């Protein structure tokens, strides 16, 4: 008979191997990094551009330029682009984040010679037709009106604006800013930002010699451009930890978002803070989940995270909780933060978190594309692979005292901006 009460023997993750990319510099100076691996005949090619020259009077300029890249070039209409991409079973994505604008192609290798030239066309020759811009403005304003009815969306918007003010990070979307978008703004930004000097290419999946040759042909010497002006540079100041309450009379739940400006990946405390954050709200078994969901049943989910951006980082806790228990939920969050500051975490919990984090890191390295994602994290923070070595080392060795010190250094209830959208009981 087996003893079902007895857990099977287990081991800690011993080895985490990261695949480093092969760097190539093309004739025009374009930096290409490739990670080859995987059995499927697929390739992902990302063209990543730094966000630059943010102008608060045209806050949507860089976003709209990125979103409209597949809306037409001097040779191809938006439907030509869509037809070709879809016909060859490829996926073409534009993504806009706080620091970067990117264009990503997923393609079967066998069709790459048909699909990749389209990417070349859109990043070197987009024209932003007025009729397409009208469509964007019309539809995005409609979507915004729906999103503004979501408490969670509103809480993010207010939170970002409170933390990051009048910068791209803090931009508080308004319908009238869509109306102010013009073709000229987009063309201006396009010629400034979409340049080889401002671009990094990351290739992953099954990266064949043919694929690299094609990339060189299309994006090497034949792609020329001007000087880059350098990425956005914002400064932020710690707020004073205020309440920002927006009442919604008929809300069944309230969206809570608490947080503050914090450190980013390049700070030495960052890995340790990741451990602290995991304990507090970074996984299903975290203290916030255990208390506020699994013990009290106040919410379907609650979590916290430390987010790294180029110019800063921030820490936040977010949840949607029953309107009738909103104040109690806030009290419990405050309690959990204070416990981290006043008591050391016990070994049983800390060992669990160590193992969980290492397992989770290992699980996050599923294929060449996930290895490429790990590379981007450090590359765009100007860090090398030592970062991961140090991270793994910190996860394995950080002590309960060090965690408590980090909590006292970085977390304090009074310093958190407290956004609540919904109803307080």
């Amino acid at each position, binding site marked *: 008979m087996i003893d079902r009460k007895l857990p099977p023997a287990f*081991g800690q993750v011993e080895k985490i191997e990261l695949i480093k990319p092969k760097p190539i510099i093309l004739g025009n100076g374009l930096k290409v990094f490739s990670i080859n691996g995987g059995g499927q005949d697929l390739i992902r090619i990302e063209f990543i551009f730094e966000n630059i020259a943010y102008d608060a009077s045209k806050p949507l300029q860089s976003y709209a330029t990125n979103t409209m890249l597949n809306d037409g070039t001097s040779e191809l209409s938006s439907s030509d682009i869509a037809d070709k991409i879809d016909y060859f079973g490829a996926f073409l994505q534009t993504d806009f984040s706080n620091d970067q604008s990117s264009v990503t192609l997923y393609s079967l290798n066998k069709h790459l010679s048909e699909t990749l030239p389209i990417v070349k066309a859109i990043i070197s020759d987009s024209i932003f037709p007025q009729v397409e811009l009208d469509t964007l403005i*019309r539809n995005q304003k409609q979507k915004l009106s729906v999103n503004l009815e979501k408490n969670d969306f509103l809480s993010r918007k207010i939170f970002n604006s409170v933390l990051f003010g009048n910068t791209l990070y803090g931009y508080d979307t308004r319908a009238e800013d869509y109306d102010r978008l013009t073709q000229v703004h987009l063309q201006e930004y396009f010629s400034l930002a979409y340049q080889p000097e401002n671009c990094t290419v990351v290739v992953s999946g099954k990266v064949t010699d043919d694929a690299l040759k094609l990339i060189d042909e299309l994006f090497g010497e034949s792609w020329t451009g001007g000087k880059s002006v350098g990425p956005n540079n914002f400064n932020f100041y710690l707020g004073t930890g205020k309440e920002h309450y927006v009442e919604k009379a008929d809300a069944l739940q309230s969206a809570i978002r608490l947080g503050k400006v914090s450190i980013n990946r390049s700070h030495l405390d960052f890995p340790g803070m990741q451990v602290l954050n995991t304990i507090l709200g970074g996984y299903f078994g975290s203290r916030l989940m255990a208390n506020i969901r699994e013990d009290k049943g106040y919410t379907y989910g609650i979590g916290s995270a430390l987010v790294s951006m180029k110019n800063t980082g921030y820490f936040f806790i977010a949840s949607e909780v*029953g309107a009738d228990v909103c104040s109690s939920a806030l009290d419990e969050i405050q309690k959990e933060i204070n416990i981290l500051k006043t008591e050391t975490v016990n070994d049983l919990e800390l060992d669990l978190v160590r193992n969980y984090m290492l*397992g989770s890191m290992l699980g996050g390295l599923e294929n060449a594309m996930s290895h490429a994602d790990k590379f981007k994290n450090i590359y765009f923070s100007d860090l090398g692979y030592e970062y991961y070595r140090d991270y793994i080392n910190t996860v394995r060795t950080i002590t309960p005292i060090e965690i408590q010190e980090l909590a006292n250094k970085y977390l304090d209830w009074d310093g958190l901006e407290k956004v609540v959208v919904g109803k307080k009981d």
Partner: protein
Amino acid sequence: MVSFERFTLDNGLRVLVHEDPTTPMAVLNILYDVGARDEDPEQTGFAHLFEHLMFGGSVNIPSYDEPLQRVGGENNAFTSNDITNYYITLPAVNLETAFWLESDRMLNLAFSEKSLEVQRNVVGEEFKQRYLNQPYGDVWLKLRPLAYKEHPYKWATIGKSLKHIEDATIEDVKKFFNRHYNPSNAIMVVGGDVKLGEVKRLSERWFGTIPAIGKVARKLPAEPVQTEERIETVRANVPLDAIYKVFHMPARTDQGYYPAELISDVLSRGNSSRLFRNLLKDQKLFSEINAYLTGSLDAGLFIIEGKPLPGVTMETAEAAIWTELDRMKNEAVPEHELTKVKNKMESTMVFAEMSLLDKAMNLAYFELLGDADQLNTETAKYLAVTADDIQKHAQDIFRKENSSTLYYLAN
């Protein structure tokens, strides 16, 4: 191509093994052949509530999540109208922990009153977060009973109302467990850096001693053929009007499913699709428009949903949708367009092989459909669809008397 081996334990548990030595991880996925369609009409939302309770401790192990996280693992689960699916990913060296945890909760649960009470609240908050406190969140609570009159697809997985969840008792929980959670009602897939021999040994060791209970035959009321167009109008505090139009269509296992899915792709997949290009971009009638399928095991629904732009009347919007549907019925899809949606389907199937967890879930699901190997012949079925099949099925599906329309209007 997803390779696998298969064996069945004496108690009826089916086990599939997918060896993938390229990863240091392992996956253990268990699909239980029970979903919201198996619920008592007076106790809806129960399959999903029960899924939450599966994490509330089992007969020999007080906490499910804690020991798994301790060995570097993660898990989750989902419930649909058809199935309940649980999955674990963990470093392959710790595979046995997954067997220990999953077998104990298949053997028996702890049935803790505290867990039931808390999860009733958690699911209540989930109900609010997803369905009630969101603009348009309750659409499916209204569409299902409009489209289905008899079949249990007439209620959503979350349940008809919060009340059904609040009323659940521990006795109900036990009954549900005994009826549905047993080896012959489950399909287990173990994948990743694992070996068939080892999986056999662990399966026998941990699951072999769980008593066999016969599979309960499913007797669901068939949905009568719809003979009249159905229309419902609701008003709510939303910023934009919306239209939802649903049609009955073949079940997931029916040959007719394949042409229907390609029809939805022609209409709505990607920026080259017809609804997007014609109704949103060219005619400027909608700010959003989509077509998709429920893909359910019993006869399902083909859905078209859109938000007309301000100033566009519902009549105009609806007429434009019908123009596109009639075109599907009256004209053969051009060769180029058909090849396009097939190519997209083919590459999607290749992309799905990138993820170990997706592979494991797909194997379990196709095994439930009849044979896991169908996962590997699925692409061929889409490629075999002709323009004629598409037209025929479009004629079959897109009929007024087969439709239910929900006008969701802004107050």
